[in-house]
């Protein structure tokens, strides 16, 4: 993850944040297990098949869905196709550069994709037009437009919200348009380790202080659907247990609050 504009967090800020954390408080006053404010605007790009503009604190992303007919993968002839792509737009941060996805944006896209896919959010089997020949291809594209940490969760929220409102253009294939069949709702929760503390939904400053990152994506049944550890630090098994528990709890709250 990129450093802030000065390249490194000042020693003073750093000590301040670490000290507060020991007292159970974060730089911006949050408790370790709380998310920043979430705002979700669906249908933000009305001409796409589905879309959502998500703000997670000062991190902002726009997800847009396009659904087109095409060939299935040879090994899954009876399923539609989902592809997820994340663009870290240069407008989002001073050091982001235009160009093909780098390892950072690829990792984000793949973790988001795994959460959606493994939760079986989309009923891919309902997206077959002609078995082995023609299926619906769901393109989930995410533009990151403002960056202040925790892109994985912002992107998962945006894609999930966009998919829930998406419409399959069945009329282009001689049928009727229909709502994209979605069922489970994956919620990803990303946490980082700063010193010995685990905090959820890190902002950029916290990401820069952290040694290890973990994302746990769960569904309403509180099963784990995807996990990803990142960064060069480590977690103990107990820390991971704690992270899973936290994800499960926060996931429940987010579902409750934003996806009734």
């Amino acid at each position, binding site marked *: 993850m990129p450093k802030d504009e000065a390249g490194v967090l000042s020693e003073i800020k750093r000590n301040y944040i670490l000290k507060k954390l020991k007292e159970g408080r974060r730089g911006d006053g949050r408790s370790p297990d709380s998310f920043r404010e979430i705002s979700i605007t669906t249908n933000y790009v009305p*001409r796409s098949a589905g879309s959502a503009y998500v703000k997670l604190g000062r991190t902002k992303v726009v997800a*847009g869905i396009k659904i087109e007919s095409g060939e299935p993968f040879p090994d899954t002839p009876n399923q539609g196709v989902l592809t997820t*792509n994340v663009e870290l737009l*240069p407008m989002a941060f001073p050091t982001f550069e235009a160009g093909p996805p780098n390892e950072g944006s690829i990792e984000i896209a793949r973790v988001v994709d795994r959460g959606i896919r493994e939760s079986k959010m989309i009923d891919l089997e309902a997206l077959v037009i002609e078995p082995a020949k023609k299926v619906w291809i769901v393109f989930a*594209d995410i533009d990151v*437009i403002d960056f202040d940490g925790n892109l994985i969760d912002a992107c998962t929220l945006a894609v999930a919200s966009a998919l829930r409102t998406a419409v399959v253009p069945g009329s282009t294939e001689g049928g009727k348009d229909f709502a994209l069949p979605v069922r489970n709702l994956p919620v990803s929760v990303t946490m980082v380790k700063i010193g010995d503390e685990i905090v959820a939904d890190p902002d950029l400053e916290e990401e820069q202080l952290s040694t290890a990152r973990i994302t746990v994506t769960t569904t309403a049944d509180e099963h784990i659907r995807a996990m990803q550890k990142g960064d060069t630090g480590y977690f103990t098994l107990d820390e991971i247990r704690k992270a899973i528990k936290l994800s499960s709890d926060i996931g429940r709250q987010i579902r409750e609050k934003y996806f009734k």
Partner: protein
Amino acid sequence: MGTASDIKLIDENGLRIDGRSPTELRPLKIETDVLERADGSAFIEWGGNKILVAVYGPREAYPKHTQDIEKAVVKARYNMSAFSVDERKRPGPDRRSVEISKVISEALSAAVMVEQFPRAQIDVFIEVLQADAGTRIAGLTASSVALAAAGIPMRDMVVGCAAGKVDGKIVLDLGKEEDNFGQADLPMGILAKSGKIVLMQMDGDMSQEEFEQATALIMDATKRIYEIQREALAGKYRALALERSGE
């Protein structure tokens, strides 16, 4: 320009397919400071266009060999998001967006006081979230606002505006069907106060007489668009003033 078609684009009352008169602009709205990281930003909705612009700079031009020892380099990057158009667009620049980025960069360079920032680079990132006709002039109009919002000294605002030819008639600000099935499109970039032309492209079929009509429409609309730009920025300064008085 567009393909021939049987679609009637102007009705018996002289109204256009979306109900506008020939000299009417589509609805247009500009907001500033919509992003936190950028030094300046603007969001424009113009007809169905939704375009976000972020400005970074002046900052040291990089790589070094791109530096101009006499002035700042203004580098616009026009980009369409994958979901901005009917068929999903593969991410990354294509020939069209490379050309548009070039003409927008040149148009903005004419307005910015580039000579104040030798060796610097001013980046203007234009992201088309939803594309209707006229994305380049909408992007240009918003870019100018974002530059001003970033506090970058400019000699004048750049206003983007287009006119075109539809069913044989010259009309202002083509909509999507008009763009698809019309006979000519003339996008321009104009310095608001001086009326100087800093961007101009044309394709289609226009007599020299029709060109006169088209530019008359554009020049007139420029004033209206400039007002909207000013208001967007005034909003910013009002907000700033309130903030201060609130302290």
